């Protein structure tokens, strides 16, 4: 349906084309592995939503809508339920991300210990703000609420590696060393 037929609808979700590919994101090998190792740990299938989302995101890099549908089929629930869960949590991404995601903690202990300077200089170096990805697709910059490293503030996660007691110069140099 053309948008002009329904002028009061601001976001034309009904007409959105979902990108699809023939090859599944959530492939048979991963399905079999999760079915054997993960599913017996839970009393119902839906309870495995978080670990399955983690597994698929680790493999694909983010959660495209087609993957959400495949996960829903696997968990015997609806895509809406899976998307509801996936969109609630900060760590699940429904858009493509950079190769490295920098999570800079900006909670109180980190802000007291110099996080604004750190974040400012990372932004200047990468040329992107929080929530954005660099043009070469290498880095996505994000702010995080407390990474549990308050005694060793300021801190940041680079993918799943935690950097503590960050010295801004050293940290910026270490970004250059990442491939």
């Amino acid at each position, binding site marked *: 349906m053309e948008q002009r037929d329904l002028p009061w609808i601001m976001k034309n979700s009904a007409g959105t084309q979902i990108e699809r590919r023939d090859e599944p994101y959530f492939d048979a090998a991963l399905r079999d592995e999760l079915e054997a190792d993960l599913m017996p740990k839970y009393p119902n299938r839906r309870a495995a939503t978080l670990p399955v989302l983690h597994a698929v995101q680790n493999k694909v890099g983010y959660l495209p809508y087609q993957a959400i549908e495949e996960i829903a089929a696997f968990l015997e629930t609806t895509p809406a339920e899976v998307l509801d869960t996936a969109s609630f949590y900060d*760590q699940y991404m429904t858009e493509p991300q950079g190769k490295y995601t920098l999570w800079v903690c900006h909670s*109180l202990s980190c802000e*007291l210990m110099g996080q604004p300077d750190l974040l400012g200089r990372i932004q200047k170096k990468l040329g992107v703000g929080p929530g954005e990805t660099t043009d070469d697709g290498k880095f996505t910059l994000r702010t995080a*609420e*407390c990474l*549990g490293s308050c005694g060793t503030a300021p801190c940041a996660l680079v993918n799943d590696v935690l950097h503590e007691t960050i010295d801004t110069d050293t940290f910026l140099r270490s970004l250059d060393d990442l491939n």
Partner: protein
Amino acid sequence: MLETPVLCKRIPTWPWGDPADRAYVDYDAFVDTGGYVALKQALDMEPKQVIDAVKSSELRGRGGAGFPAGLKWSFLPPEDGQRRYLAVNADESEPGTFKDRLLLDFDPHQMLEGIAITMHACRLDTTYIYIRGEYHAQAKATQRAIEEAYANGIFGKNSKLGKINDRWPECVLHRGAGAYICGEETGLLESLEGKRGWPRVKPPFPAVAGAFGRPTVINNVETLAMVPPIIEHGAEWFKSMGKGRPDGAPPSVPASFGPKLYGVSGHVNRPDVFEDDLGIPMSTLINEHCAGMRNGKAYKAAIPGGISMGVLGPDEMDAELDFDIGKKHNCLGLGTAGVIVMDEDTDMVMVARNIARFFAHESCGQCTPCREGTGWMYKILLRIEQGGGTTKDLDLLLELAGSMGAMPGTTICGLADGANWAVRTILNKFWDEFASRVSVDRSVSLPVVGAGH
């Protein structure tokens, strides 16, 4: 001062060891240093005796609320042969709190032993350890410890615990995905069931209908790690540490017995996790444990236990850190004892704005007063910080803070209470600082004649 470390027995911590020497304690090293002795003792006892032992120790939950652990266990209904769960709250997400991380990183078997004892005592067949998504290294260490425990007959088929509810006991690590609200116990259960972490309306309480609609016990990592020493050395030993109830108080008033992990961060020389008696003065923690304020600056303010607890002002440095701190010093409570120390140069408006932003971001959106209120609180504080605030804003902040939360009775869980206590206490204790940052509102508002529907 605590003579020997309890939870930090195998984790080098000031004054008993050098934090640089910290290393993962595996199953063999744990057993060699007296580990899993308490489990053996507990298995020789009737489940009810174990619950009674913990009850008589008056162990209070270390996760923030300070609810008596033994009492919580005794709320479980009688067994009906069906499944019963233990959910371990390792979703340590409150800014300033990093004490459970120490246990998960280096000595997770303490927690696993506590889990095994609790499963035996409360007849729980499956444990889910809900660990926050940002704890990558901690999840690895905990997973490793769980596998070691399975290999050594703590959990799984032919476990030492025997069959519980006609099943072999299981212990599963469940990773979260970045949501503070999942540390609220029913939010945690919703998340465990694969849904968004929206807290549930209580009652029914989790002990009656928790995970998957079945009876569930939810305890914090540190609370569970405290159970084995209590079983091994007895309630009297535990009560010889910490601080008893105030003079003349009846036994129904909960006391603050036992040791506690204090995580100190902010402007101090040696920020870290320390173990000491409950009830030590904060000045001792800052001056001795943390080797004083950084750069010789003067103390200005501190948050006693995670940012939701409110703030202690310049004249409250000697506040005793026990579960009674809330009443004595006009803050919400001890919380997790994650102390954030601020020096004389700290801008309290910035502190309030940072805290308000945290709660605005982490409000789950279920209850309107919290979803909207935390957001507006942040916007107002941002405006004051940037110099655009007026005196009206200060009153508006106090009005907002007083009307959202489980205590005013407008929300399901306590997230908004955390936000409003933090903002309210900072505003009240540093009123002059806020007043000097706002201009007097000179606009005149006239009543609108004939307004309304």
